[in-house]
């Protein structure tokens, strides 16, 4: 299968390659992700029980308390956080979280075109997400 490159907008610079973890639901880092484990705990969330550790986390948008930025920072500091964030629409909670955590972030990406398990390359400078290896 041909590699596809999705073009969005670079929010926080930096590049990385990793396995995508994709959600169709907005995510609140405060209350929605357990601070001590990096596992999603939000009720009825499609990622409930999933660990964010080392993943390229793709979800439509953030929501909830702005303190959520600090949760993203701490998870990354402790090695429990995502490697990069890909959003459909960047909201301030996630933008600030990615800035202080110093992980690449891209938005304006059609999340549905990425599947959990895909290997993707994120370029926070160019604002691109390249799917280099599809999940089954």
């Amino acid at each position: 299968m041909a590699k596809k490159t999705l073009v969005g907008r670079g929010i926080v610079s930096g590049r990385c390659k990793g396995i995508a973890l994709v959600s169709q639901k907005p995510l609140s880092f405060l209350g929605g992700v357990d601070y001590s484990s990096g596992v999603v705990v939000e009720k009825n969330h499609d990622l409930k029980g999933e660990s964010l550790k080392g993943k390229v986390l793709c979800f439509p948008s953030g929501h909830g308390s702005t303190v959520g930025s600090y949760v993203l920072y701490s998870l990354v500091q402790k090695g429990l956080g995502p490697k990069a964030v890909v959003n459909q629409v960047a909201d301030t909670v996630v933008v600030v979280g990615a800035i202080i955590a110093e992980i690449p972030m891209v938005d304006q990406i059609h999340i549905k075109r990425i599947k959990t398990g895909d290997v993707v390359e994120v370029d926070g400078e160019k604002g691109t997400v390249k799917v280099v290896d599809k999940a089954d």
Partner: protein
Amino acid sequence: MYLTKQEERMLDGEYGWANQVSMKILVRLGDLFGATKLIPVQSAHLSGVSYKHLGDAAIDFLNEVANNGGRAQTLATLNPSSFDQEYLVKHYSKERFAKQTRIIELYKKMLIQPTLTCTPYYLQKPKLGQHLAWSESSAVVYANSVLKAWTNREGAPSALAAALVGKTPNYGVHQPENRQSNVLVKLEAELPAEVDYGALGIYLGKLLKDKIPTLKGLHGSDDEMKQLGAAMASSGMTTLFHIGEPSKKEKLETISVEAKEIEEAMSSLCTTDHAPDLVFIGCPHCAMNEVESAARVLQGKKIRKDAELWVCTSRYVRERAKNYVDIIERAGGRVLCDTCVLVTWIKDLGVQRLMTNSAKTAFYAPTLNEVDVALAPLKKCIQVACRN
């Protein structure tokens, strides 16, 4: 976005890590939301103080900022914490005490004043047209709509960044054209009490999301507007509302609100009709005259043995309302400073049912505090708290 030479150097890290990371936040948000430059702010008000809400994650970050040169460059104040120093402090673990104290100490190290109130405008009232960077949503709406100062709805980190740099990017409601209303709300119902303003706010917030309404047919006091705005900002993303007639003869989308909608919002906020264990007045923190109103209803009465009454306010107001505080305390009520129900662990105190006059609290408490809620006007709340 245009940056001065000094701002550029700050962004490059010449003024230390705390200033650099603050500048990165301000510049990135400014770029994303269409700012052209940074503008000085008269004050910054920071949410993200209560340990209950903030958790351990934030301590890591605040610690780095405080220890890497982060110092406030403008008047900066703090939201409520998870306990007061007289009553609740005795009820929680050493760990919680230590963590909360640490958070406040880190902010103090950054020269941010430990005001510990969500109503900083009673301590120092912003003037018309002053630019602010505030992050308590109820205070943001009050500042913009009642005091007519100008502040975006900042998050906890962006308000901190603004405090440390003393500036904010000039996007959003810092631009006059972004302060104009884009929807007209015609109120076709009476609002007899502050709870009705709150219920209206919950209804409108859900409906309008981040729109800027002009509200026609509303004649409330500042305290009632405080309830309205706090509620709108809870169920929606309201930053600002206007009262009266739309300023231009433009065709605005128009919405009518009737008594039925307000009644429905009210009943959706009430999850119990059983007697409360805790009656709470003071979300947002009470103004002087709200402490007075509570005292007047309590005069000569006693609080039931099986319930508590909390009246939450700032230390500033409490010190100036001493006579009323005495009346409330003689009746067996508590006037608590530095905290409120939403940011403390009332479930751990055995509270199962809460009664309040605040629609914001009624909106949040079932999830944030895991308690049932009844919403009623101040007078009824206090009467329910009293012995027959």
